[in-house]
């Protein structure tokens, strides 16, 4: 028996959020007395996959069929269900993302498994199997019992603390995995893929510097970008900013945009409407800079500065460069 963890790849390496999923899965496996086995799909070097061992996995199944090099949630879900069958996995873990949810859903229907998405802590396992999940867009939590034989958990970022310095060196064995591919999963043709060429993806970034309508226009974005560079951060924005085409749509954070959970979220000239908060309330630390002391965002913030972003951002950048 095993706990199966699906890891997402980025340029052939396992994504940071997926390494958290591996560590989470390994902890679950420890509780159930199983082995933690990883599934990776797509192009990757064996050495980039072996690292899953550092996070507690004993084995990595790698499906590298050329047909799987393009992300295809239908075929990937099929491969996941087949890997679970091969490994006798009753617990399957994925990290929360568009792909994670899509695969979890389709695999759940294939395996007649209960699926809980948005899990925020390790499960309680004693007789029953219970997890905590975020609901009402972060406004509450629910403890949910999974009663099905096979259980699928989609976990949020930052659910498990991994201290990179503590990670022990142990390679996982990488095995080739060749799922049976079904023609039905390949009926769609990909017309176009546009990937942002920013260095850092918002969902993976540990620090995000984000701007709202208070940034006044796209031509005024440089001070924010300068702070992001000084901190090694990704940049984001509020919805009106992307609606106005000041910034690309995929930078838009919130209920209708991307949900993020960095260690540090710095909001510049964003009022803190509930729909924006819904996308950032998983952040560990929130800093708000706004000239209006009544801006609702201060209620959700850990640190606040009342003032003009254009005066404050250069000061922060200066201080960050001296770190």
């Amino acid at each position: 028996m095993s706990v199966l963890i699906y890891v997402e790849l980025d340029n052939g390496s396992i994504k940071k959020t997926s390494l958290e999923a591996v560590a989470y899965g390994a902890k679950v496996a420890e509780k159930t007395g199983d082995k933690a086995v990883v599934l990776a799909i797509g192009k990757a070097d064996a050495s980039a996959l072996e690292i899953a061992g550092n996070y507690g996995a004993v084995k990595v199944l790698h499906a590298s069929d050329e047909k799987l090099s393009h992300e295809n949630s239908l075929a990937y879900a099929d491969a996941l269900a087949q890997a679970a069958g091969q490994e006798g996995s009753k617990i399957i873990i994925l990290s929360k993302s568009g792909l994670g949810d899509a695969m979890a859903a389709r695999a759940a229907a294939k395996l007649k498994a209960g699926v809980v998405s948005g899990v925020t802590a390790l499960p309680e396992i004693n007789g029953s199997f219970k997890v905590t999940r975020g609901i009402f867009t972060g406004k509450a939590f629910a403890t949910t019992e999974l009663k099905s034989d096979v259980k699928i958990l989609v976990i949020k970022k930052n659910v498990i603390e991994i201290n990179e310095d503590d990670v022990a060196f142990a390679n996982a064995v990488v095995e080739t995995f060749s799922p049976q591919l079904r023609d039905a999963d390949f009926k769609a043709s990909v017309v176009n893929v546009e990937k942002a060429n920013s260095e850092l993806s918002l969902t993976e970034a540990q620090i995000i510097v984000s701007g709202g309508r208070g940034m006044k226009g796209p031509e005024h974005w440089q001070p924010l970008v300068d702070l992001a560079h000084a901190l090694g951060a990704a940049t984001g924005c509020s919805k009106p900013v992307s609606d106005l085409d000041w910034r690309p749509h995929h930078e838009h954070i919130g209920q209708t945009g991307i949900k993020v959970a960095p260690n540090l979220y710095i909001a510049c000239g964003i009022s803190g409407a509930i729909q924006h908060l819904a996308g950032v309330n998983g952040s560990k630390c929130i800093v708000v800079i706004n000239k209006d002391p009544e801006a609702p965002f201060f209620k959700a913030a850990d640190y606040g500065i009342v003032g003009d972003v254009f005066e404050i951002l250069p000061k922060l950048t200066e201080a960050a460069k001296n770190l």
Partner: protein
Amino acid sequence: MKILVCISNVPDTTAKITFTDNDTRLNKNGIQYIIGPYDDYALARGVELKEQSGGTLTVLHVGEADADPQIRKALAIGADDAIRVNADPLDSYFVAVQIADVAKQNNYDLILMGRESIDYNSGVVHGLVGEMLGIASYSPVMKLDIADGSATISREIDGGKEVLKAPLPLVLGCQEPIAEWKIPNMRGIMTARTKPLTVVEPVSVDEMTVPEKYFLPAPKGACKMIPASEAGTLIRLLQTEAKVL
């Protein structure tokens, strides 16, 4: 073209969430219920596609009678008829089985819904339904056009966008800017009253997940204010106090 749009009935985004019965039930007192905001996008695009293709649009809700006003609103916006599966929706799997069961009896070309409901935020119902019906599912769809039995879909992927061409039938989870929300007009509201709303009983489903207890996040500590004149000290605090740098 036969279109099915699935809608959820959820507390308004701004609703204050509290619990009753020893934190085992949502306190519905004073909460205004709405069609899920993402489902509203699906409905709006569904109505446009129906008008273009001259097809039919059925709206489906899994829930109890208190959702009927939202179902009537969907009829007023442009759905031709409605089905309500009369059950307290217990979890995503349960809801998906009910939707798939209705869909199996009717052969829809297109099943649209929001990318997630804003109560449980799971984002898994479209995938479950797709797999249960043995057809493809994609989400979150931001642009959708149909021609010659195929859909051209633009959807968000991690760090970018993808355009796909996929043959019908399909199940799609929608989000903005797929269409502008539609507001019912007077004529729509009047005709909605006479449109058929069929209530059917649920098919039985094994219990997969059971919510047991609800709780609220720990109250947030006060925000530490830093004078604008000393903005630079924030960076030091983030490093030494908050330990996030």
